[in-house]
């Protein structure tokens, strides 16, 4: 008996290897997304089978027996028309509520997420950990911890997709998009580019290595020594003497950058804008478009002077300023 089960399992394993039907469920949200996916599959199968069987039954039952036969007159009852309008509508309401609440939940990264920065370029992925290490087409992450990816592109639109985590987001030039996951299963998973980006689009792929915390620490320690991103940002900040105007105590010609990240600020136009990655980037590349109320528009543009990577490092630095106060406030 056991042998039979074992044989069956091995057979199933071979079939699964040749004919995989489900990607691994390797993130905290994958199971929930799959439940909805299976529910949708159930609805699809139910209605397809229903309609196919009715058609097949009618095909046989009401086949033409002689060329002169006359079909019976049938009137369409209003109740039936209403029923097959309303019942599918109700099913759609259920689907909408289910899918949307899951989507909204999956869209908000937990506050404690570790932030990793991603730059897409034709045709590779650059990733940088806050501790400093850089990776290309590979990402090492600890299992069981929320990771937030802040992403931008150096050229065209790319798509960052990890099927095993059921996550995906386009990566756009000139702005930042973000996405998060909590991998719960150590292993190696595909990273794909899912937005067509030119010649080697199908080779803009990589691997996500999910490792237990201890292994991850060992990996971090084992690589080339590098400074944390915020520190690299600080060096750029000092090199370009940004601190000449952006004095920490607010006495400079530009606003102090301490503690501004994540807070709304009033622009000279009167508009309130949240200080986020996109605003900081805009302040560097097109400062006059976002200069703050109460300050003269004297900041020079740094358009084209920084790489996307340097901009991300500067952002990491601005975020680190006043980060302690932010955590205290929470």
């Amino acid at each position, binding site marked *: 008996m056991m042998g039979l089960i074992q044989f069956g399992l091995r057979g199933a394993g071979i079939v699964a290897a040749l*004919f995989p*039907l*489900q*990607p691994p469920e390797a993130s905290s949200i994958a199971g929930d*997304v799959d439940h*909805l*996916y299976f529910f*949708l599959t159930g*609805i*699809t199968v139910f209605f*397809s089978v229903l309609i*196919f069987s009715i*058609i097949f039954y*009618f095909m046989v039952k*009401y086949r*033409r*027996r002689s060329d002169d036969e*006359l*079909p*019976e*007159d*049938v009137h*369409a009852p209003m109740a*039936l*028309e209403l029923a*097959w309008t309303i019942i*599918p*509508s109700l099913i759609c*309401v259920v*689907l*909408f509520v*289910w*899918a*949307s609440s899951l*989507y*909204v939940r*999956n*869209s908000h990264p937990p506050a404690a997420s570790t932030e990793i920065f991603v730059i897409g370029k034709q045709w590779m992925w650059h990733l940088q950990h806050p501790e400093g290490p850089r990776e290309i087409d590979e990402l090492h992450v600890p299992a069981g911890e929320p990771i937030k990816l802040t992403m931008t592109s150096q*050229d*065209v*639109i790319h*798509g960052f*997709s990890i*099927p095993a985590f059921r*996550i*995906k987001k*386009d990566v756009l*030039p*000139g*702005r930042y*998009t973000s996405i998060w996951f909590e991998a719960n299963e150590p292993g190696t998973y595909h990273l*794909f580019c*899912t*937005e*067509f*980006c*030119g010649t080697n*689009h*199908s*080779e803009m792929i990589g691997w996500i290595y999910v490792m237990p915390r201890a292994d991850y620490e060992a990996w971090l320690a084992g690589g080339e020594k590098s400074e944390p991103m915020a520190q690299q940002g600080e060096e750029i900040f000092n090199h370009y003497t940004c601190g000449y105007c952006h004095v920490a105590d607010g006495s400079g010609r530009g606003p102090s950058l301490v503690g501004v990240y994540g807070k709304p600020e009033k622009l000279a136009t009167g508009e309130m804008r949240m200080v986020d990655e996109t605003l900081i980037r805009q302040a560097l590349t097109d400062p006059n478009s976002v200069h703050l109320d109460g300050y003269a528009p004297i900041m020079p543009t740094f358009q084209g002077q920084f790489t996307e990577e340097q901009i991300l490092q500067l952002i990491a630095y601005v975020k680190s300023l006043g980060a302690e106060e932010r955590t205290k406030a929470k």
Partner: protein
Amino acid sequence: MSTAIADIHEAPAESGVNYLNTSYGVKSWLFTVDHKRIALLYLGTITFMFLVGGIAAVLMRINLIEPQGALVEPDTYNKLFSIHGIIMVFFFLVPSIPATLGNFLIPMMIGARDVAFPKLNLLSWYIFVTGAAVMLYCVLSGGVDTGWTFYTPFSSTYSHTNVVLAALAIFIAGFSSILTGLNFVVTIHKMRAPGMTWFRLPLFIWSMYASSIIFILGTPVIAITLLLLGLERILHVGIFDPALGGDPLLFQHLFWFYSHPAVYIMILPSMGVISELIPAFSRKKIFGYSFVAFSSMAIAVISFLVWGHHMFVTGQSIYAGLVFSVLSFMVAIPSGVKVFNWTATLYKGSISYEAPMLYALGFIGLFTVGGLTGLFLASLAVDVHLNGTYFIVAHFHYIMVGGAVMAFMGGIHYWWPKITGRLYPDLWARFAALVIFIGFNLTFFPQFMLGYMGMPRRYGIYPAEFQTLNVMSSAGASILAIGYAIPMVYLFWSLRYGPPAGPNPWRAKGLEWTTASPPPTENFLEIPIVTEDAYNYPVAGAARG
């Protein structure tokens, strides 16, 4: 009056002169203003374009047999899927049913002698041919590699291929769509025969009316969008490329504002064809006429409000995503209503299974699967996983090939005797319908599984674990190709050797069946006067007047 809706077996005066033999020679075709001849000009043009797009598809499927790419270089593969998409969408599917069957049938079904603006109709064909020629030149002079979606800034700044030529080709062909839509709307409003009220119109006319409105309202938007793309590419005016101060998502909004309704341009006419075939082969009035008619209009309206569902993972705001998700679910309802009504039409009918009916039933099956899998993509959390994968490819091929092409084939087979006056061998036709159905499912069903597994679309090279399903898909594609080749053979054969069809071989209702096959140039010797509803098939126990 009763001679107008003549006894279905009796042909109008048989002078032997019809629209095909009334004059001969290339000139008589190139300068014709007869809507029926123009329909055939379109049929020839789009069949040729279908072959070009089909060859691109065959080469892609051959390449995908091997994970490392069995046939072509990555750049070539990228051009193949772009050419396949652009040609099939803009030069086959969009004009397929409207420009051929629509052109041929609208005047005949409403009892008119021609469309409202016959010369404009011919001009539309010339414009279309110009667009098609530019597209073929684009292909022959190196091709284009942006995909049919032309996403910026790749298309406007980074691609090194003939983007402007391809955009120009679509821009030109768009005018053909706009003018055809205009012509149809005016024709349907102004040229209906006496007694042909709106609610006596065959449902094919309703669906053509709905898609004509989309033609008129939607096509200018894609034209402007492609013009802006050209401006950015040639003159570096910053519109879409952030490096020039533009917004790359603006392009996607504009593109999908046309291209989602365009999906309904492709499927609404098919729904119209199916609404003709099912009653004809069940010899029965369609179930829920007004529900089917109004669902076409509902689809046309809502289709303009769902474009954002193509952009759920682009960084569009969560709230925009929620709104577009609701609207996308809403557009599913009228499509469902149609499927239920078609199915119910079979109830207590007198059903026969000639080739057109097999295509119609195949359409219902494939469209049902295509429509239901659309619900996956309207569901935000699931779309995040499936967006950009082969699931999308499978879904829209179920709608556009399983739906639109099946209906086109069904319609061609149904009206072929009317168009040519000849019958084709029905056994071969049924066989071909079956081969197409099997080949189609074998090609595209595995792609649903590939998509759920995570395989991205537009990959010429892929991880080895996806090979089994890709080989199945390629095998299916070869069967599908045979399925499409068979009708081309027997339909050509029938032109010469097919037995004469007579005016109404199916004993179907509808004004087009009351005149000779092929019809005379003026369609009807006498303009008919309509005294009954569409699909008024005789029923048991009722006296026929």
